[in-house]
Structure formats: C-alpha cells, structure tokens
C-alpha cells in the first residue's frame, strides 16, 4: 500500500466535515477486529464489509473498494490469511492518507 492512494475529491462538500470522523471510525473498527478471535472475527468482518460497501464510495473512498470486496470474499471463504493481509492494507490506506 502506498501513500499515492487517497480520498477522492469528488465528494459532496456537505460530507467534508465528517471525513475525519469517518476515518477515525474505520480505524477504531479495524483496531477492534485485531482483538477479536475466531470464529467471531470472520462474522465481524462479513458484517463490517457489508456495511462499508454501502457508503465507502459516496464518502470518496471508492479507491479502497476492491480491497473491501476482496476482504468480504475472504471472510465468506474463511480465508484468515488473506483477510488479515487485507485488513492491514485497508488500515494502512487510512493511516497514510495525505493530510
């Protein structure tokens, strides 16, 4: 994951004030997953990715959607190795967003 990926600027200006909160909420969700153990972890990932799919794009984070969809598939296949990697990628994405 590189720093070149960022939030899209094509989002509604009314949503802009909520972006910091949005990122913070995602990092909190990712962190809480770290402390979750199987089999709850798979279910939590399924639930989270289902939710993320519905709003990542309108908030300007469409760029990370492929990883989110892969993560959902990984959780459906209970592929823990892959989804751990993807969780890391997504976390890095949010942590390395340009200020």
């Amino acid at each position: 994951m590189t720093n070149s990926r960022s939030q899209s600027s094509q989002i509604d200006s009314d949503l802009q004030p909520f972006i910091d909160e949005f990122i913070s909420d995602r990092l909190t969700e990712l962190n809480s997953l770290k402390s979750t153990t199987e089999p709850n972890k798979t279910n939590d990932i399924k639930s989270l990715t289902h939710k993320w799919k519905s709003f990542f794009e309108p908030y300007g984070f469409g760029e990370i959607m492929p990883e989110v969809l892969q993560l959902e598939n990984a959780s459906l296949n209970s592929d823990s190795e892959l989804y751990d990697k993807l969780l890391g990628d997504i976390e890095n994405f949010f942590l390395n967003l340009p200020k």
Partner: protein
Amino acid sequence: MASYNKTTTSQEIATDIIKKTRKKFILFTLLGMSLVILVSLFSLNLHNKFLSKQKSIHALHETLAKQIFLIFEIADYGEKFNKMHSATNKQQIKDGLNALVKKLKLENENFKAVLDNDNTSFSEDLEDLMAENELKSKIREYLKKASELTDQSPESSKVLKNRINFLSMNSKDGLYDIFTLMNKRIRKHNRDSTNMIDRMGTLLITLCFLEILLVWLLVFRPLYSAIQIQHRELTSAMQTVERANQTKSEFLANISHEIRTPMTGILGYAEVLQNDEDISSYDKNRSIDIINNNAHHLLELVDEILDFSKIESGKMKIRKKEFSFIRVLGEVYSLMLIKAKNKNLNFSINNTGPVPTNIISDKKRLKQILHNIVGNAIKFTSHGEVKVTVNYDPSNSKLLIDVIDTGCGIDDQSVKKIFNPFEQANNSVSRNFGGTGLGLVLSKKLAIGLGGDITLVKTKINEGSRFRIEILNELPTENQKFLQKISNDELENLTKTTEAPPLTDALNDTSILIVDDAKENARLFGMYLKKAGAIVDVVNTGDDAIALSQVNTYDIILLDLQMPDKDGFQVLSELRRLKFAEPVIALTAHAMESEKIKTKAAGFNGHVTKPVTAEKLINVILNYL
C-alpha cells in the same frame, strides 16, 4: 339527500343518520317546549290581568257600599239633630256625626287609593264618571263642611244647624245619587269582567287546541317527515352500499382475470426457460420479452389500484410546481406515437391558440391523465386517427385539452357510467381491451384535484369520441410565455434533446423517515433528500422507526434490511401490523436479484441497492409518491 360513496361503511352511514335525527329531535323538541311555554305565559298573564281587575272591582264596590251606608247614617243623624233640643243630646249627635264623617273620609281615601292603583280602562271610566258628576269637588266640599262640625270653637246654633242640614241634604240628594250611579257602573264592569272570564275559559280551551295543532304542525310533523326522509336515505344508502359491494365483487372478478392473464404468461414462459435447455436464442429472448411485458402490465395494474385506493381514502397528494408544459406534451407525444404507429393510426398534437410554455400544476398527475385519456383513445380506435387539440383560456387560466378519436364510440347506456369506478363501458370492453375500469375515473379525480375536470364532449358509435381535459394553470399571468404553434416534430425532438430535470425541490415537503444503523448512510441519505426539499427524520434502530411512525406522518420510509436488533423485514411486518400504509423502500448492500425478490415478497414497495447516488435515490422515491 345525502350521498354515500362506495368507501363509506355502513356504520358511518348509520352514525350519520343518527346524528341527523338527534339534531332534528333536539331542534323540534326545543321548538315545541318554547311554544308550550309561550302559550302558558300568555294564559297566565291573561288570568292575572282579569284577576287583578276583579279584585279592584270588588274593593271599589266594598268601599262604595260603605260610603253609601255612611252617607245614609250621616243624613239620619242630621234629622235627629233637628229634632233634638237639649244641648247635651246635640253634643252627642255632633260627636256621632263626627265619627261617621271620619269613617267616610277614610273610606273615600281607600276608594281613591284603589282607583289610583288600578290602571285599567275600568278605573279610567270611573274617573271620567266622577269628573263628569263633579264627585271629587262635591265630596271635598262635603267633607270640609263635615270637618267644620268637629271644630271646638263656639258657634251659633244656627250655623251648626245649617251645616248639619247641608250634610244631610247633600248626603241624600247629591252624593247618594252619584255613588249609586258609580255603583251601577261598577256592577256593569263586574258583569263585563265576569263575562270576559267566561269567554277567557273558552279562549284558553281554544288556545289549548291551537297549541296541540301547532305542536303537531311544527314538531311532530317535521319529526315524522325527518324520520321518513332518513328512512329513504338509509334505504338509498344501503342500496348504494349493496351496489358498491356488487361492483367491487365484479371488479375483483375482473381484476383476478386481469392479474391471472399476465401471470399465466409469466409462469408459462418462465417454465419454458427453466425446463427447455435447448431453447434457441430467439425463443429465449422472446420469452423474456413476454415475461417482461406481462410484468409491466401487472405493475401498471397494481399502480392504478393503489392510486385509486389513495384517492378514495383521500391520501393522494397533489404536488404543484412550475414545469414545462410543452415538454410534457413532447413526452406524451413520443410515447403515444409509438402506440399509435403500432396500430397504423395517425396521431397528432395541435393547438388552436397560444399555449403557455410553462405552467404550475402537478406534472406527474398531468402526465398520468394524458397517458390515460390519450392511451384510451388509441386503445379504442382501430383505424383512422387520434388527435389532441390544446387550447388555453386565459380568463380562467385553464388549459383545455381535447382528445379526439375515430374509434368505436360509447353507447348511450354506457355514457352514464364511464366515470363510475370499477365500471367500463360494458363487460365486452374488459374482455376485448383489458384494463381495470379505473383509468377514466382516476383521471377525472386527478383532473378535479388539479382544479379542472374531464368530460365526455361527444361520442357516436363507430364514429369516435371527444373527451375534454381541463387543467388549472396557477402560474401568474405576468410570468407566462406562450407558444403560438405546436410542431409535432419539435415535440418529438424535445424529449430526445432535453436534459433530465433538476432534482432540486423534487421532493418538496415530502416527509421521509430514514432507518439505517450505519450513521454514515443515514447522514448521506439525509443530505441527499434534504437537498431535494424533503423533510427528513433519521433513526438508527427498527424500534425507533416503529415508535416514530406512530407519532409522525411520513410519506415514505427508507428501511435498511440488515440491522442489529430488528432487521428490516421484522420492522416492515410490525409497521404494516400497525397500519402504516405508505410506501416502504428496502435499503440493502446486497446487489443480488434474489434479494429483490425477497424484499418484494415481504411486501416492500421498492428496493434500493447501496451505494446509491442522490439522483437514483430521489427517482426511486418519486416513483412511489
């Protein structure tokens, strides 16, 4: 006579009739009581008047009799005085005379007091009689002389004698005659009064009969009439309800047929697709087209039934705003031209005078009306043409749209009922052309809602019909622009080139509840819909949604399917159980077709897959308003 529409329940009719009867009963009872009170008061007043007169007569008669008696006694004393020679005896006579004079004076004052207190014509008559005979002055003089007798000053016997003689003479020859005359007059009044009391008895009996007659005429007769009228109303209402039930049964039979026909097509072709593995690409596409067409037909049918139900329950909302009337005509033209061409019919839209380019009305409903009336004209015309003529009457700001066809026309019997719900011209129409029989009545009701109407101007069997649609344009005259000539080519191009209308204000004053446990989505949808003019409430749980739906009125609910406590299906079921009748749209991140089938089967009115753009979300909502 009251009219009851077909949705009025028999309980409502009965309550209405009972209310009316109660009102009339109260009114006529009050009227009757007032009449009885008035007549009783009149009788009491009459009785009191005669009683009072009778008392006065009695009192006057009594005092007059006493006075006559006293005058006689005074005269008698005068004679005794003349015969007396002893001074002691004379003094005794004088004292006795003095006492009699005092009594006479007192009785005379009583007499005057009674006369003064009585203000009837009777007392005036006595006063006149007294004045005529100078009774007052004579009495005054008589009493004056009598008073002088009581003086203690020494007087000559001669003077005293003269005075006594005066009293004696005046008693017999003067006052007695006048008093007798007055007594006669009082007796006459007494007789009159007694006769009047006799007559009053007759009068009161007559009044009693009159009262009974009036009470009958003004109370019981109207009440009886009211009961008769209400009986007729009830009978008529019952007949209307029975007719409505019968028509609804026929409608249900018709609608069942209407639903079964496309459904059979859908099921049949779905089975072909499912079972025939070797189906050719052509047959596959044809089967899909047939399924698609039948599904659309079903949807239209359901929409018409829902619209009718909304109008009947008064829940149909009219949303008026400015829009391009010419563009609406263009849209109608493009759509109807295809239908007309499919039947080899000529189709045109013309104007006979300047037509406003923009109007203020409800665009969606106007289009619905035009689609229906023009669509009907095409449906019932097998050859010839369908022509739409647009005119504008600036005097009452009304658009006059005539839809003229060369179709089958409507027979005289059917003309009377074409605007009745659930009825088509005749049953063969339903068999030959399909339809619910709701389109025309729906359009008429919508046109009335838009400040106009729809009328059948003329029709002739096998020659065609002419319907007139009137729509009120609420755009102020000063803001209006007019198009002199409508060109059909331009109308057709209009729909091809014009951009989609802006979504700002598309949901003006629409009340929407968003239910989504993800605050990001709730915030996002809220923002989209508020920008389109909607009034938005947002909740994050199903329980909150249910609670809020019972407190506030919403035109539509957007309901997330996947929520932690109660999911969307449970919430919908609870909402419907609580009689929430407005559309509920499912929100879900599942994009699979099976999810749509599941939501439809559960009773959701629509389905939106997240993420969704503002435009798509608003358009979905607009479809259900």
